[in-house]
């Protein structure tokens, strides 16, 4: 099934303070499409957590949001270091974020668990040294 709408973003890996620009833009776009507020909240939080991860760990990457008739798909792709142990990374509280990130209130080991919590489907494909692709879907 081809998507009805696609939004593409380049996520800047150098600027932690501007992380979230893509997610906030998506939130605006979904609002314009008239989706219900809780769906918008779930999509934008899941995407923001992914964006933050890409900035913290992978020097940025690309984000695509595809809107289908029955669901919204978010694909986050980076060429970062990859995730060694996905099962461990999915545990609440597990984090490899550096101290300066923690002092900003992130790096609590909640990013991936939140992405799973707020989506109906999530798949992580990762190869150490090559990068990570996260695909998430939220049913409409």
């Amino acid at each position, binding site marked *: 099934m081809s998507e009805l709408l696609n939004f593409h973003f380049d996520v800047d890996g150098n600027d932690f303070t501007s992380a979230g620009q893509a997610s906030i833009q998506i939130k605006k776009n979904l609002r314009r499409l008239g989706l219900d507020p809780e769906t918008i*909240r779930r999509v934008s939080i899941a995407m923001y957590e992914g964006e933050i991860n890409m900035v913290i760990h992978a020097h940025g990457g690309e984000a695509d949001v595809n809107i289908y008739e029955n669901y919204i798909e978010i694909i986050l792709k980076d060429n970062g270091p990859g995730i060694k142990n996905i099962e461990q990374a999915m545990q609440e509280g597990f984090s490899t974020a550096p101290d300066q990130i923690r002092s900003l209130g*992130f790096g609590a080991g*909640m990013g991936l668990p939140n992405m799973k919590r707020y989506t109906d489907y999530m798949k992580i494909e990762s190869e150490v040294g090559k990068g990570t692709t996260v695909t998430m879907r939220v049913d409409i």
Partner: protein
Amino acid sequence: MTVYELSQNSQFNVLCLPEPEREISGVYIGDLLSWVMGRAQGDNVWITIMSNINVIAVASLSDVSCVLLAEDVTLEENILKTAIEKGINILSTPLAAYETAIKISGMI
């Protein structure tokens, strides 16, 4: 109760109020941003002592009705400007988070 009505209480100071008519559904207290995004509900008042720029993004994406900075925490001018642009209401109070929550609980 709306954020505007909350802001009329003498314990709460307005830092910016771009969307004064937002309804308040309850309160969430937290400083770990990912934790807040995982647990806060839409239309909550979010009480925190965090004051970096990411607070604005988290408030926007979590769809909280306002950020309430406890214990007289202040925000830099450029962060406040971003909050206004993104439509995020921000209040501050000299009260600690616990007393702030009790205060709001008695009002809603």
